[in-house]
């Protein structure tokens, strides 16, 4: 079984890896690039813990082949804080206690960021539906939704 050589951009850095055709983008991020921020909660696209963006589009990295990343731009949780400063969403998640165990947090942050880029002023309902593919078993979502709303408000004010 020959491996595939992939050149792609992750969080702005050009990277290369060799992958088996069967390996997912999530496998490649975690095992070949040591980016373990995206998590595998289900492997079937049902939990969202592996959320990343590919060419700006929110996807489950468990449902993308590593080989498909060729020539793409991938953004993961590891690229969300810039220059040592947390993204407003990250800050608000800590402030609002919007995480308990924290395993779903990277995926939810990536998904929430993608929402606010598309819609800076979402309603609570829009937020809940946008995040419906990100399971959280600890919080009951209440504080997550509050944190996203608060971050959105702060970002609107800042812009």
């Amino acid at each position, binding site marked *: *079984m020959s491996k*595939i050589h992939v050149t792609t951009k992750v969080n702005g850095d050009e990277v290369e890896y060799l992958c088996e055709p069967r390996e997912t983008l999530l496998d490649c991020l975690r095992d070949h690039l040591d980016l373990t921020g995206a998590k595998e909660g289900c*492997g*079937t696209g049902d939990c969202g813990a592996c959320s990343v963006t590919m060419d700006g589009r929110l996807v489950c990295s468990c*449902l993308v*082949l590593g080989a*498909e990343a060729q020539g793409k731009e991938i953004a993961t949780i590891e690229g969300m804080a810039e220059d040592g400063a947390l993204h407003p969403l990250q800050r608000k998640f800590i402030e609002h206690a919007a995480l308990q165990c924290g395993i779903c947090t990277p995926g939810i942050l990536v998904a929430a960021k*993608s929402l606010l880029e598309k819609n800076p002023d979402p309603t609570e309902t829009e937020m809940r539906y946008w995040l*419906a*593919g990100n399971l959280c078993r600890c919080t009951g979502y209440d504080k997550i939704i509050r944190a996203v709303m608060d971050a959105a408000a702060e970002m609107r004010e800042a812009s």
Partner: protein
Amino acid sequence: MQYHTPPSFEEASRIAASASGTTRFLAGGTDVLVQLRSDLVTPDDLIDVKHIPGVKEIARQEDGGWRIGVAVAGAEMTEHPDLGRDWPGIVEGMDLIGSTQIQGRATLVGNLCNGSPAADGVPALVAAGASVTVTGPNGARDVAVADIPTGPGKTCLEKGEVISALNIPARGENGGDAYLRFIPRTEMDIAVVGCAVNLRVDGDTITEARVVLGAVAPTIRAVQACADALIGTTLDDAALEALDKAARAACEPIDDKRGTVEFRTDVAGVLARRAAKIAYARAKGEQS
């Protein structure tokens, strides 16, 4: 597993035709990768069609119809400024599949090729009278979407055949469509029942109608008796009652982990009524 990225459908078809083992086409991958991951299907050849020119395009045709590339993701359909104005039911059917993340990848054609009677994307396509272009070893042919699935997990596509485009007819005047499905949660489930309604009105009177049910039979089912219940009416209570009855009568569901025969039959009638009301309002321009 061999991973292929052919530059054309002809080449994709050739690879598939000459393959000796299991072949799968990869567009959105939201079904193929799940099967791969769970060791249900490990293709010997996986043919990624996303490198073929035009597969990500949504194009209005000269006759007012639409041609949708096979790798267009659900989110791209939802975001399109005009498609949803013509065919809101088709767009909302696709939009109901999976999460935001799934929408970033999943395709209508993939949903169709999966052959599931519960596919959310398909009933509205059938109701719209959509067709697909199939490229195979003997060239291209057009096939009605309704004819593609032949049973749970099965399609009429022959070895070496690949769907190369989706064609949606022109909306025309005074038409409206809608799709509703029932799931236990608000998101993330497979349809227990689905129903698409596409109709046209003249004033208040329905002149054309198609009603298509999902997840209540081995394949997605267009129900003429439901259409007959609507045509010539103003969607009054009697018409809705007749529609409900016809929808129930058309059901041949199974009992499974997602629902019972009784439940699916009852809810098919409920959704038919609800979807018809939405489609009717849309046809009359009262609702977007």
